[in-house]
């Protein structure tokens, strides 16, 4: 198991009082697995993803990276480093840096590191995602599909063991959604793991396991 969540509970205070986003959630993600989580909006899918990624500390329960790494016991900077080496993120809104080119956005996880190898890795990903014609364009000059492919390439830049994808196809047409899912499927087939939060029905085709979520609980 590459990630485990054990009886995780997470709540937020909202305008109408306390909102329980995760209620006693337990799950695991194994190597070479694409776990898809489906559910209506506001059921706690994104909170689950953030908590599993070591970015949102649970109120109760435990999160483990591997067998015995407790990310929330680490100081923030060490947790950042651990996360950077282990997890890549893909979001519905792409979250590309608007003033950087495709190449620079892909390479951004290596900020403050100067290495020729990193340039080669960026070039490799540009080729892999069919962005070679767009490498020197900024996000505003890209189509939505190209933006998401750039975001996916950025997520893979550090060769993470896990990709956490939050509605990666939410803003894409069917064709581009399929391209993104194919890339994720290919990543899994190469030994990576994907925790995918999605509404997309096509994701079922690529997912090795699908969990449904409602009101902060996972339904078997």
């Amino acid at each position, binding site marked *: 198991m590459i990630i485990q969540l054990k009886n995780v509970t997470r709540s937020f205070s909202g305008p109408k009082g306390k909102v329980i986003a995760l209620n006693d959630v337990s799950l695991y993600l194994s190597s070479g697995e694409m776990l898809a989580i489906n559910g209506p909006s506001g059921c706690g899918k994104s909170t689950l993803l953030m908590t599993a990624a070591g970015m*949102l500390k649970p109120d109760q329960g435990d999160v483990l990276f591997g067998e015995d790494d407790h990310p929330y016991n680490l100081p923030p*900077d060490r947790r950042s480093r651990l996360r950077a080496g282990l997890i890549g993120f893909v979001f519905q809104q792409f979250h590309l840096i608007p003033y950087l080119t495709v190449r620079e956005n892909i390479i951004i996880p290596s900020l403050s590191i100067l290495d020729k190898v990193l340039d080669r890795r960026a070039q490799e990903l540009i080729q892999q995602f069919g962005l070679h014609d767009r490498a020197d364009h900024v996000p505003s000059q890209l189509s939505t599909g190209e933006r998401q492919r750039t975001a996916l390439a950025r997520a893979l830049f550090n060769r993470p063991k896990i990709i956490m994808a939050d509605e990666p196809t939410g803003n894409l047409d069917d064709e581009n959604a399929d391209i993104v899912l194919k890339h994720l499927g290919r990543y899994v087939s190469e030994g990576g793991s994907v925790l995918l939060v999605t509404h997309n029905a096509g994701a079922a085709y690529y997912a090795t396991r699908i969990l449904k979520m409602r009101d902060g609980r996972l339904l078997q």
Partner: protein
Amino acid sequence: MKIQHLVLKEIIHRKLNFSLSVFATLIATASLIGSIVLLRVHDIKTQSILQEKEAKLQERMDILKDDMRKAMLILGFNVVILPKDQNLADWYSDDYSAKDMPEAYVDRLANSDILSIRHLLPSLQQKIEWPERRRKIILVGTRGEVPNLHQTPQKPMVQPVPFGSITLGYELHRSMDIRVNDTVKLMGKMFTVNKCYDERGNQDDITAWINLKEAQELLGKEGRISAILALECLCTGNSLPIIRKEIAAILPDTQVIERESRALARAEARTKVAQEAAMTLEKEKLARETIRHEMERMASILIPVILLACALWIAFMGFINVRSRREEIGILRAVGVSARDIFMLFTWKHLSIGILGGFLGLVLGTILPFMSSGPDQVIQIGVVGSLIFWLGLGALSMIGASFLSIVAGWIPAMIASRQDPAEVLRGE
């Protein structure tokens, strides 16, 4: 990727925010540098004005000295006629005669046909203790000028002290706080103060002058005098021996000495002129110093206010920048960029603001005071300012502006580095 590269790209992307921060740094630096350069320009101008005035005064002094020299050539000199038994060594050391002679001598001299002697001033002098004030003073009785019957009547040079009046030297009236028209008691007799002299720096400062008759009564020396001063004696060349001979023929038991030479008078005149010139220069210097102090005072109030306002503005721009980059910071943190690197990202940006603002502020702060000083002085001031001064100014503007910008941007940078990526990305 280097942090500096990301900073540069962001600066180009958000030009307005960067420009407004640079502008604030520019204003802060230009104010500081401008005030320093203004003071420097003022100092150099002062130096130039004083040098110019000094040269002009020197020129005027030379003309004045020459005029005085010419005037002195036609002036006479002063002699003192003393009793023959007066020890000259004592007279030179005490500057008054302790011996006396008949008052009639002065009339005898005035009635004689001697032509070289003019303006005769008999006096009775004695060092006494002013019993009512317990002070040692020199009491001088004088009757003013005795007219020479064989010469054309002239305006008297010295007026007599009226009966019942007393004239006091500087040290006497100053130390006893006596003023004109005060009444004082001297040896049991009441006198009204008719004059108080300014400081002369000699025995006159401890001298009291009264009417000769009253002095003779007080000292018990009726009909006696101790010296006759003859002013502006008419003579050419070295004529003192001739005068001595003439006086000896009329007043055999007296001796004649020269009181003040023309050279001394000339030297005094020269000193006076030089003193006047120095005073004029000193006044000008003082006026310029006063202006400088005013400028310093204004700068010491204004500059901190401007620096604070600019720092607040830079901080405000920093907060806006952090706020508009929330998503960017969130994603950077999510992909593993450390809080330290995020902090450095903002600090590098503020360093860039400081360097650019500092440079522009240095240029503006230097140009404006120069322009205000007029084109004719620009080159002069530019040349006079030493290399060390300009290097120091350059270093101050660059380091000072960078420091100001980094300090002002510290809190926004801290806030950025402490942003929770989950909070940011969930919010987005």
